[in-house]
């Protein structure tokens, strides 16, 4: 049996072990250095937990180009009028003031794996002992024929936070009664599996609430099925009648092209002309910095060791959240936040001899269907056969009582407040 620190310090023996083998794993320098790239649920959480729990023994630098963070999670609640924009914007100040994290306000451009440095857009090179990459997703602009980076102003995706979220809301507000919204849903795997369908729900909610009941929403999906479909679809019919129409690939026969100039979407089955609004949610992949570092296959996501969240290509690098392939865990804020805590625990064990424990993971995704009517899906996950595998799962059921749905939405709201407090305070 290989006697590693991980084995020895786990569980009840931690107290005994702490005094004997608590020496830093990285010797010959004053402080271990961790650079964290990306200030979302993965990166912000990892930075905070590394800094807070190492009591200054690890120098943590968070690289994030934006001064504030707008959450993608609950951006649909902003679109649906349930939250103001200000309510989904957060600041990084407390991470610096409360935990001593150094904030590098720049864009991380490149990872120099040989020299163990991150190269920033402002020219700085940040050396690291361990690197946490949590860059999120990049959009595949060529995945929908006729659509492009230039077209994202006209046919917005709203799948990255900021101006795009606001564009979706503005376009929704301008839809006339009787107008048609076409949403092109993304293929798997993508950020926030139930997100497109919660968004369609919010479109319908706003249209109904503003007397535009003759408008319709057509979802063109490249997938045969989608997250929480068995709950969403009966709920849509109950809440919104025929307003939301979901078409799978066997029905629409493929999305052939879009034309931003004429707001047209062509499928193998039908051509939708003069759409009031086309929401293109394209295919996705790991953020460029992770792909360019050779941590992901072309157009894909980064393979990780499920026990540590470390890249299988580089043991000095952890990849969190949407940019990694986390097995059965969906790409969600909850997942990224949860993975960050496993990674922080593992890295503190390596760098400062803190106790380590077997990784375990958790996720829940709530989706709002209508006022006080939310549904959820989630599970517990553990490393198994080289991947993160679900060991317990749960999902809302169709026909649940209004009280259960109201309670689920109350959970959703409370979770948002808690995860934001967990990330930013």
């Amino acid at each position, binding site marked *: *049996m290989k*006697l590693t620190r*991980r*084995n020895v*310090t*786990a*569980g*009840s*023996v*931690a*107290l*005994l072990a*702490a005094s004997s083998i608590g020496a830093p794993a990285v010797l010959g320098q004053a402080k271990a250095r961790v650079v964290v790239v990306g200030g979302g649920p993965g990166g912000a959480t990892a930075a905070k*937990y590394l800094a807070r*729990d190492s009591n200054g023994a690890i120098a943590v630098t968070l690289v994030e180009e934006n001064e504030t963070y707008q959450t993608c999670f609950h951006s649909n609640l902003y679109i649906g009028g349930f939250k103001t924009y200000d309510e989904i914007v957060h600041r990084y100040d407390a991470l610096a003031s409360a935990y001593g994290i150094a904030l590098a306000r720049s864009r991380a451009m490149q990872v120099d794996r040989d020299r163990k440095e991150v190269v920033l857009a402002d020219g700085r090179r940040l050396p690291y002992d361990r690197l946490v990459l949590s860059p999120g997703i990049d959009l595949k602009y060529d995945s929908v024929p006729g659509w492009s980076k230039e077209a994202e102003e006209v046919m917005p995706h709203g799948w990255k936070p900021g101006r795009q979220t606001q564009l979706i809301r503005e376009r929704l507000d301008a839809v006339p009664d009787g107008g048609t919204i076409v949403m092109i849903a993304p293929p798997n795997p993508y950020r926030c599996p139930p997100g497109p369908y919660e968004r369609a729900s919010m479109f319908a909610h706003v249209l109904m609430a503003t007397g535009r009941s003759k408008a319709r929403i057509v979802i063109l999906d490249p997938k045969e099925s989608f997250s929480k479909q068995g709950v969403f679809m009966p709920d849509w019919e109950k809440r919104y009648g025929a307003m939301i129409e979901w078409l799978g690939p066997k029905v629409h026969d493929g999305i052939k092209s879009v034309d931003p100039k004429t707001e047209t979407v062509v499928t193998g089955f039908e051509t939708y002309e003069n759409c009031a609004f086309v929401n293109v949610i394209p295919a996705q992949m790991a953020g460029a910095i992770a792909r360019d570092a050779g941590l992901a296959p072309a157009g894909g996501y980064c393979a990780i060791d499920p026990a540590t969240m470390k890249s299988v290509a580089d043991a000095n690098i952890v990849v969190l959240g949407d940019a990694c392939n986390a097995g059965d865990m969906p790409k969600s804020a*909850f997942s990224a*936040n*949860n993975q960050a*805590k496993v990674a*922080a*625990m593992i890295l503190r064990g390596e760098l400062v001899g*803190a*106790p380590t*424990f*077997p990784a*375990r993971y*958790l996720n*829940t995704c709530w989706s709002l269907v209508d006022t006080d009517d939310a549904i*959820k899906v*989630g*599970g*517990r996950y*553990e490393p198994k056969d080289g991947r993160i595998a679900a*060991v*317990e*799962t*749960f*999902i*809302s059921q169709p026909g649940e009582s209004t009280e259960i749905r109201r*309670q689920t*939405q*109350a*959970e*959703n*709201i*409370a*979770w948002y*407040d*808690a*995860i934001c*407090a*967990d990330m930013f*305070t």
Partner: protein
Amino acid sequence: MGWDGIKLRHTQSPAGFALLGALGLLFAVAPVQAAGDRALGEYLASECTSCHQLSGRSSGGIPAIVGWPEEQFVAVLNSYARKERDSQTMQAIAARLSRDDVTALATYFASLTSKP
């Protein structure tokens, strides 16, 4: 194998029993206030704080769990594990916690003070 702290409690190998016995003796003579392993509790608790705020604040839909008496904490988690209390999320979580996990969590959260 089976020398892994958490798995050891599940598999209960003879070596594990011997070791836990020795530790139990050690703890019995030492003035140990907390019943659960603090480091384990702190790690496991990090999973809870995605929904239950460490400050003890609560937005209503998810209860605060800071500063509860340990016996109460253990009893509530056990009732979720037995599916006697409703909450799909908490039932799924409790189902995967060992007795030592629950004790460690109870000790950790009991040691915190609410800062509303």
